């Protein structure tokens, strides 16, 4: 089905244990909330034992070609908290936003619409369903969560083609801090320094217009106050009760009412519409004094229908003139006396489901919220006439005690942390049209304060809370409230300055949060380095920075390994926590002929600097690693030679003094004479033969020898004609010795084919090349010759 990506799936799978199965992947995903926007992410759905998790991997290339291209960025268990959703992108037909929410995080990805995305999404949704049936256990994810912060840990050094690629990672911006969240946080802390409390007068009005068309000026309502408010938030309910309005969520009435609103606002100021939200016969309009208009930012709104046909519907929008956004909610909750629970539920639904696109925070997280609307709570336990009597006697307090909203609020069932001002006006429902007389119809509904305005948040002061009896076209009276609210206004100049200062500080953080270490020495010097006598030096790497430092010795350009073969670095990579140290051992073992050892090692900090560590030492000359030809030219122990004498011998410029090196002769002679107690010498001979600068059978003849191995004549010819004289001497000398040895095989238990012979052969004859195969050939030559 996803055969297209089977190759990539295999690579991704390699990142996991075999029991952890990569079910589905999505390539070329870009993370929206990232500082960067490259589409090198891969989403992978992984299953282990019927539990699922979503992995976000970063790929070093568009399409990874090896496991080292991938590192795990985030792991999200698919559990009860997990959900995924999609959202269209305004400017794009081809892509959508894929939103993943879990207990801890919300991630947004941009993905291309297509088979891949729909397959992947359906797999994810299916896995979510599976996880609902058997409560998942996610212990298996722990190991990945552990590696997340240490990006690229799994990438094996051996697979890096050269150092710049490793360093490239830094260029990809993997710094220790997340600039964006850091800056937001710092700005929040500094908010008092760049904002200023300003008092705004806010006029909040709500009116259930009972499906009536607008026919009278709204000024008596909207211009009730002497001076013009800074902001209007006007909500209507039941703008149109026709079936069409419900079905199509569209009615000309809304525009008509809005026109009346615009005309009805205070004549002493000019207003502009900030936002208008509509839903089935309801609307909420926010208008602002045009002098403030330029400062309004991030306006967004949402509507939520709650259940039964149109009767309940709610919406809201948020604006932030200022840093902390405010919201106003206009709602029309379920009708009828007995439906108070339903209304409570509606309220909860509104809160739960409201979601501002631009600024996705919950209603309760807004600094200031105004809740207005036909909340539809009634007066309980009193008959219509009782209510009317109490109203007539102006004994509103008794009535208010019977008010369902007050009762439910008191019990904590609804609008818990909202405040409502004292109600000093008579119930706003239900009146005979065009009168101030309570319902005289057959139904004779008991009057109620269905229309209410509440608020939540600091710095809100209610100046007025009233109804407007002279607005008579509906069976409800409009209600309004005038608030003086403190709004913190950003001082653009101060903001700019603080913002810039913070940015500068963050730049500093960038440097401060770079991994930093010091080493106690950058020059590692060895005493005279002798053949196969290891020497160890230690350096101490101390993390002097603020973040964990991952170090690694990396290879230099054009080199195949991070150090020469005479050196071992233990450990060659690791991680050091701030304030801690790590000892690194450098062990040198000399097995070749070198005058001195010298190398510059590059100690690289992931995401930081590189340090150079110079390793050096002089080497002692040794017969073991010398050439056969040179050794045949000297007649004293190698250490006793002067520089000049040795130079001449090494360059084959002095005369040949022996037909085989003195050292070989001495050792073989010893073995011959003292057979039995010869273990050490025998081993030395083996060592000697295996470390001579050039093997007895020269490198260039190895292949020929192997080809000739089965044929005695050919072997003989090679030995006689192609092997250099001194080497031939050594070869024959050893062979004769072995022959001699095999004569006594009955006594000493050695057989021509047993271990010593083979070792001698393998060491002396052919070396450095896939030993097992080729030495077998060489030993055959030897055995043929020696038999």
């Amino acid at each position, binding site marked *: 089905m996803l055969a297209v990506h089977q190759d990539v799936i295999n690579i991704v799978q390699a990142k996991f244990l075999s029991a952890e199965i990569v079910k589905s992947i999505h390539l070329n995903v870009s993370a929206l909330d990232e*500082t*960067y926007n490259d589409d090198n992410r891969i989403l992978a759905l992984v299953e282990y034992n019927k539990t699922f998790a979503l992995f976000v991997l970063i790929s070093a290339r568009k399409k990874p070609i090896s496991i080292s291209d991938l590192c795990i960025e985030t792991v999200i268990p698919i559990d009860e908290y997990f959900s995924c959703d999609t959202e269209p992108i305004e400017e794009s037909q081809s892509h959508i936003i894929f939103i993943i929410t879990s207990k801890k995080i919300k991630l947004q990805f941009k993905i291309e619409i297509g088979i891949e995305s729909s397959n992947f999404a359906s797999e994810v949704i299916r896995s979510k369903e599976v996880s609902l049936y058997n409560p998942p256990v996610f212990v298996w994810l722990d190991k990945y969560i552990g590696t997340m912060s240490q990006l690229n840990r799994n990438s094996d050094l051996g697979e890096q083609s*050269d150092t710049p690629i490793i360093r490239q990672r830094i260029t990809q911006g993997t710094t220790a801090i997340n600039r964006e969240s850091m800056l937001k946080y710092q700005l929040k802390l500094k908010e008092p320094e760049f904002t200023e409390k300003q008092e705004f007068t806010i006029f909040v009005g709500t009116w259930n217009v009972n499906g009536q068309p607008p026919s009278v000026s709204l000024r008596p309502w909207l211009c009730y106050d002497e001076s013009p408010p800074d902001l209007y938030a006007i909500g209507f309910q039941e703008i149109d009760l026709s079936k069409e309005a419900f079905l199509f969520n569209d009615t000309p009435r809304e525009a008509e009412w809005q026109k009346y609103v615009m005309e009805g606002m205070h004549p002493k100021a000019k207003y502009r519409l900030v936002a208008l939200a509509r839903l089935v016969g309801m609307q909420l309009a926010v208008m602002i004094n045009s002098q403030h208009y330029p400062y309004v930012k991030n306006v967004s709104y949402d509507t939520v229908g709650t259940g039964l046909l149109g009767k309940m519907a709610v919406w809201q929008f948020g604006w932030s003139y200022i840093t902390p956004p405010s919201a106003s909610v206009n709602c029309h909750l379920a009708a009828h006396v007995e439906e108070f629970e339903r209304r409570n539920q509606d309220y909860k639904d509104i809160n739960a489901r409201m979601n501002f696109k631009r600024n996705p925070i919950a209603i309760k997280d807004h600094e200031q919220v105004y809740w207005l609307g036909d909340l539809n709570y009634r007066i309980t336990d009193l008959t219509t006439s009782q209510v009317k009597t109490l109203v007539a006697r102006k004994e509103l307090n008794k009535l208010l005690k019977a008010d369902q909203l007050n009762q439910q609020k008191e019990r904590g069932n609804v609008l818990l942390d909202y405040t409502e001002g004292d109600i000093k006006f008579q119930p706003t429902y239900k009146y005979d049209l065009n009168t101030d007389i309570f319902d005289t119809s057959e139904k004779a509904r008991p009057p109620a304060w269905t229309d209410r305005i509440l608020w939540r948040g600091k710095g809100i002061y209610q100046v007025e809370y009233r109804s407007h009896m002279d607005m008579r076209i509906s069976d409800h009276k409009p209600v309004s409230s005038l608030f003086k609210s403190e709004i913190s206004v950003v001082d653009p100049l101060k903001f700019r300055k603080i913002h810039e200062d913070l940015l500068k500080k963050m*730049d500093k953080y960038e*440097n401060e949060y*770079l991994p930093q270490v010091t080493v106690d020495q*950058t020059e590692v010097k060895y005493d005279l380095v002798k053949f196969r006598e290891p020497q160890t030096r230690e350096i101490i790497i101390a993390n002097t920075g603020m973040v964990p430092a991952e170090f690694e010795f990396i290879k*230099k350009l054009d080199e195949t390994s991070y150090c020469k073969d005479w050196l071992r670095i233990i450990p060659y990579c690791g991680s050091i926590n701030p304030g801690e140290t790590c000892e690194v051992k450098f062990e040198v073992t000399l097995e070749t002929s070198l005058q001195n050892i010298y190398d*510059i090692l590059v*100690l690289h900090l992931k995401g930081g600097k590189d340090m150079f560590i110079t390793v050096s030492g002089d080497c002692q000359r040794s017969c073991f690693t010398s050439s056969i030809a040179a050794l045949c030219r000297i007649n004293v122990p190698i250490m006793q030679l002067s520089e000049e004498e040795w130079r001449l011998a090494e360059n084959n410029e002095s005369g040949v003094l022996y037909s085989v090196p003195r050292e070989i002769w001495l050792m073989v002679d010893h073995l011959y004479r003292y057979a039995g107690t010869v273990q050490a010498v025998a081993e030395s001979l083996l060592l000697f033969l295996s470390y001579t600068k050039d093997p007895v059978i020269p490198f260039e003849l190895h292949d020929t020898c192997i080809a000739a191995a089965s044929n005695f004549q050919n072997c003989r010819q090679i030995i006689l004609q192609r092997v250099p004289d001194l080497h031939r001497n050594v070869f024959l000398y050893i062979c004769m010795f072995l022959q001699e040895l095999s004569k006594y095989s009955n006594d000493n238990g050695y057989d021509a084919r047993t271990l010593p012979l083979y070792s001698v052969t393998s060491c002396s004859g052919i070396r450095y090349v896939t030993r097992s195969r080729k030495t077998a050939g060489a030993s055959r030559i030897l055995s043929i010759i020696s038999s």
Partner: protein
Amino acid sequence: MSAGPYNYSYIFKYIIIGDMGVGKSCLLHQFTEKKFMADCPHTIGVEFGTRIIEVSGQKIKLQIWDTAGQERFRAVTRSYYRGAAGALMVYDITRRSTYNHLSSWLTDTRNLTNPSTVIFLIGNKCDLEGQRDVTYEEASKFAEENGLMFVEASARQMGNRGDNVEEAFLETAKKIYQSIQDGRLDLNAAESGVQHKPSQPGRNNLSADQQASKDNCAC
């Protein structure tokens, strides 16, 4: 606040090269920390510093590699040139030898970076006028002949007129930015030393995608 005010849209990689003791580390430190280090130890390795600057309203993160100047490290530091968008080549106006070596530094730079790499020559320690060993004129001529940008600067005389440290780093960035605008610098080339990070998704993306798919075909 426009979209993504916290982000930078580009990363430029710089290297600082030149003989030992000419003041490379001091220049970097001055640029990133605004401080002068009176006795700065030799750099044994490659130090790393960053700073975010603004060019034509674009936020750019400079990622600066300060290399060891000692001759014995020369072979190793060569691996750091690759992928540099800017190279600051520094000599010490009070030591003629550091000036004389410029041609060899320049050769390395030319060989190891790509043609669009901006090379900026800095004659450092211009606060030590009394000990001047290289005249402004000859260095300026050298720069002109080799197509380099040039200033004399001082990592010590901070804040004073003519410290020129900021200028050197910023002018280099401007030149690189210009090359991007002109299309002379191919952002998609692995070694351009520049990374583009469009902060608004969906805007700059399309062209990048097209480029990428072209790349894919090629291989």
